[in-house]
């Protein structure tokens, strides 16, 4: 179904306001007056002559930063009008919207209604209804302050048209009722007429109540000679659409032709072009129904010659549809339709390209401006800074120090978290070293009287061991071989303390001790437990077996002794507490279990402890 989807209520009202009226400004400055005069001229001349004038006005505005927003808004609006006249809807919509952005709170000037209407209307043409809603929202918020019936009716009218586009007919009808209610208070008959005409469309679409529709339209036609061309165009055009829907094609054609006569009388060139193209399309369609192919072709050719590429999308679609139908009906060459389609595509691509290029340029300019502003700002700040007293410098220094301090603190916090595990390990070493140092020293002390030479040898060995432990402790990871060497030296030293002595063996499965690095001093405290607690007071020779087994990413360790095993005494709790730190560390860093098995729980008649755990390793000593 074809219908006139555009409504001119608002436009009509705007026409009443008069587009050529000057912008209301009080300032008497000559620049202001000259630019207002220039704007008036732009508004009144043909589209093609507008451009150089717009450029001229733009220059003046750019060189007078103090000019009031109303002038900048008018400039944007006029630029929008120019682009709309050129059929460049993308640019036009942006300029119109910019113009509305200047409108702040306060009473709405009549001229400003144009800005809102055209911004709204252009987005409607582009079928970007979200933008339409946004613009109307802003408009309504301004209307609210003014509480004016006419303005309210406009707002509802805009709502109604958006609802029609989004096919929310019930809401559209509601808005239409509100619009008419407000209009009745103003007593403006012309407005009421156009509102009623547009209402017939909704009635037809939603309720199919054509009897009511025609009744209403006939009564409106009685006063036709009192209406403006815009209203009459709407009246006859819409009448035609209803007739068309009733399949009364011949009558429809008559009404369309009368509508065309009025459309051609519309003053505003952009509107005139839109309405006439619409009505030519409608005429073409009705001629197709009447099988008047020659006439249809003539109407369509007229649309084509109106520079089809710059028409509203809706009209382009209608044209293409009718042209296709005509081609099918008359067995014409399809190539003509294709040519039109191609030219439309080319045009659209070109406008998009232009738009992107413009966007890019605008972005570049904005960037440069920003940079300029920034450098100006910095310069100003620098001058300010120099003028300030030392106190201010001191203050800045304090702030900087605080900033650095907080940064330092944050960084420290992060590295602290990372270092946490390593620190724990170092703590462990620090705890263990004195423990076994004093043990060994006391042993050597006891030996001095009985066997000074042995004592001395032990002292030398002990100093070597201390040295290697000391060296290892400066790294987080030490070569496994060195670690094992230190362990052996340690165990050799401890042997003399145990009455019946003890042996040890180190077995390695798939481990390359001279190639891998492990955290130092992880095995020592477990062996120390075996010697100090497991072997204390036993009447047989002790035995320690260390088994290392290479696994993926970890080295699995088993340390087994044949000592007393875990005893429920102070010893056992001591044993637990000294390994607790190590087990916690290992479980945290390897995510594997640290197991302590008392052999007598598993094997009858056998004593001793097996400790099973895994240690991490690396292929180099760097962390």
């Amino acid at each position, binding site marked *: 179904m074809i219908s006139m989807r555009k409504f001119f209520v608002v436009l009509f009202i705007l026409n009443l306001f008069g587009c050529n009226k000057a912008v209301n400004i009080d300032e008497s400055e000559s620049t202001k007056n000259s630019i207002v005069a220039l704007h008036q001229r732009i508004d009144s001349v043909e589209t093609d002559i507008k451009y150089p004038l717009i450029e001229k006005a733009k220059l003046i505005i750019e060189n007078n930063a103090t000019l009031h927003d109303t002038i900048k808004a008018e400039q944007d609006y006029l630029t929008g009008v120019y682009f709309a006249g050129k059929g460049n809807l993308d640019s036009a919509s942006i300029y119109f919207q910019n113009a509305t952005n200047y409108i702040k709170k306060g009473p709405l000037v009549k001229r400003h209604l144009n800005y809102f209407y055209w911004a709204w209307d252009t987005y409607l043409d582009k079928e970007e209804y979200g933008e339409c809603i946004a613009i109307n929202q802003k408009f309504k918020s301004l209307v609210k302050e003014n509480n004016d019936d006419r303005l309210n009716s406009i707002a509802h009218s805009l709502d109604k048209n958006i609802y029609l586009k989004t096919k929310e007919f019930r809401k559209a009808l509601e808005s239409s009722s509100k619009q008419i209610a407000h209009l009745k208070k103003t007593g403006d008959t012309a407005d009421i007429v156009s509102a009623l005409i547009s209402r017939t469309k909704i009635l037809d679409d939603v309720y199919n109540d054509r009897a009511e529709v025609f009744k209403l339209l006939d009564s409106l036609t009685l006063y036709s000679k009192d209406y403006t061309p815009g209203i009459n165009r709407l009246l006859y055009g819409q009448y035609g659409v209803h007739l068309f829907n009733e399949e009364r094609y011949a009558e429809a054609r008559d009404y369309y032709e009368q509508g065309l006569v009025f459309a051609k009388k519309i003053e505003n060139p952009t509107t005139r072009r839109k309405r006439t193209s619409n009505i030519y399309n409608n005429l073409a369609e009705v001629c197709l129904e009447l099988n008047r192919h020659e006439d249809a072709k003539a109407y369509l050719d007229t649309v084509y010659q109106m520079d089809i590429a710059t028409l509203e999308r809706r009209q382009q679609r209608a044209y293409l549809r009718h042209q296709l139908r005509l081609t099918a009906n008359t067995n014409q060459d399809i190539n003509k339709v294709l040519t039109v389609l191609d030219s439309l595509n080319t045009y659209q691509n070109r406008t998009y390209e232009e738009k992107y290029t413009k966007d890019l340029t605008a972005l570049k300019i904005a960037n440069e401006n920003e940079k300029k502003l920034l450098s100006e700002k910095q310069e100003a700040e620098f001058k300010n800074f120099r003028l300030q007293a030392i106190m201010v410098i001191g203050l800045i220094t304090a702030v900087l120090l605080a900033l650095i301090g907080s940064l330092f603190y944050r960084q420290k916090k992060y590295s602290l978290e990372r270092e946490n595990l390593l620190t724990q390990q170092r703590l462990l070493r620090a705890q263990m070293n004195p423990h076994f140092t004093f043990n060994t020293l006391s042993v050597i002390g006891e030996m001095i009287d009985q066997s000074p030479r042995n004592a001395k*040898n032990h*002292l*030398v*060995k002990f*100093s*070597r061991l201390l*040295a290697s432990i*000391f*060296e290892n402790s400066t790294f987080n990871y030490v070569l496994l*071989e060195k670690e094992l060497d230190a362990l052996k030296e340690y165990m050799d030293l401890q042997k003399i303390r145990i009455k019946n002595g003890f042996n040890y063996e180190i077995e390695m499965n798939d481990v*390359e001790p*001279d*190639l891998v690095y492990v955290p130092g001093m992880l095995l020592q405290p477990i062996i120390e437990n075996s010697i100090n607690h497991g072997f204390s007071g036993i009447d047989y020779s002790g035995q320690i077996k260390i088994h290392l087994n290479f696994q993926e990413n970890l080295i699995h360790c088993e340390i087994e002794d044949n000592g007393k095993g875990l005893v429920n005494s102070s010893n056992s709790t001591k044993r637990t507490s000294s390994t607790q730190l190590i087990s916690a560390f290992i479980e945290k860093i390897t995510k594997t279990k640290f197991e302590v098995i008392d052999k007598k729980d598993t094997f009858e008649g056998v004593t001793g402890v097996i400790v099973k755990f895994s240690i991490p390793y690396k*292929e*180099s*000593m760097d962390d």
Partner: protein
Amino acid sequence: MIRAVIIDDEAYMHEEIKKRLLEFFPKDIAVVAEAENVANALDIITKFEPELIFLDVHLTDGTGFDVIEKSDFKDFNVIFITGYDTNAIKAIRVGALDYILKPIADDEFREAVQKAIESKSKETHLETLVSVSQGHYKGTDDQKIVLKTTDAVYALPQEDILYCQSDGNYTTVHTKEIGEILVSKHIKKIEELLPPQQFIRCHQSYIVNRQHVVKYSKQGYLLLQEGIQVPVSARRKDFVLKNIF
């Protein structure tokens, strides 16, 4: 009788050494002079022309290396004495020189002195060896390493080494300029002497000089110049790849 001198800035060390020499080598070695600093040391070396020197690395007015460098007379064996100073120990070992650690362990002392007595020919390369050690101790740029074979002593610039290959307790050092050198040292002892940032243990039996590596082949070896292939053990592949390029 071998004429020996002791150069150490700590008086008690003189007693420790003399006591042990008397106990273990009463007929072989006689201490003919003693000194506490570099100046006195140079004096007594010129005066007594000793065959063996016990030389402390740290002296009050310089180092043991300085003593040998400055001395005109160099026809002697030297046993360095050092405390726990990793840099000094590594410097001595890079120069393939002998040393004993403080405090002195009897067995280590006997071994070192015995070796000095048995090496009848005096250390003819002493100057070269000490300059390598000195260079390492001071951290100069063109670092060298001393490699001793049964019939030669090489002071080799480290960058000349392509790779090292282990064969039990022997290691073959493959060089760019002078071919293969067979050293009677375990590969891990060699590894300890080489800077880890430059040399990478890519395999149980191989050390490679990363600056000569051209590429890694997925078949599990590193390709060096002139098509030399050095194997990479599967387990160390990730480590090698991470560190070599």
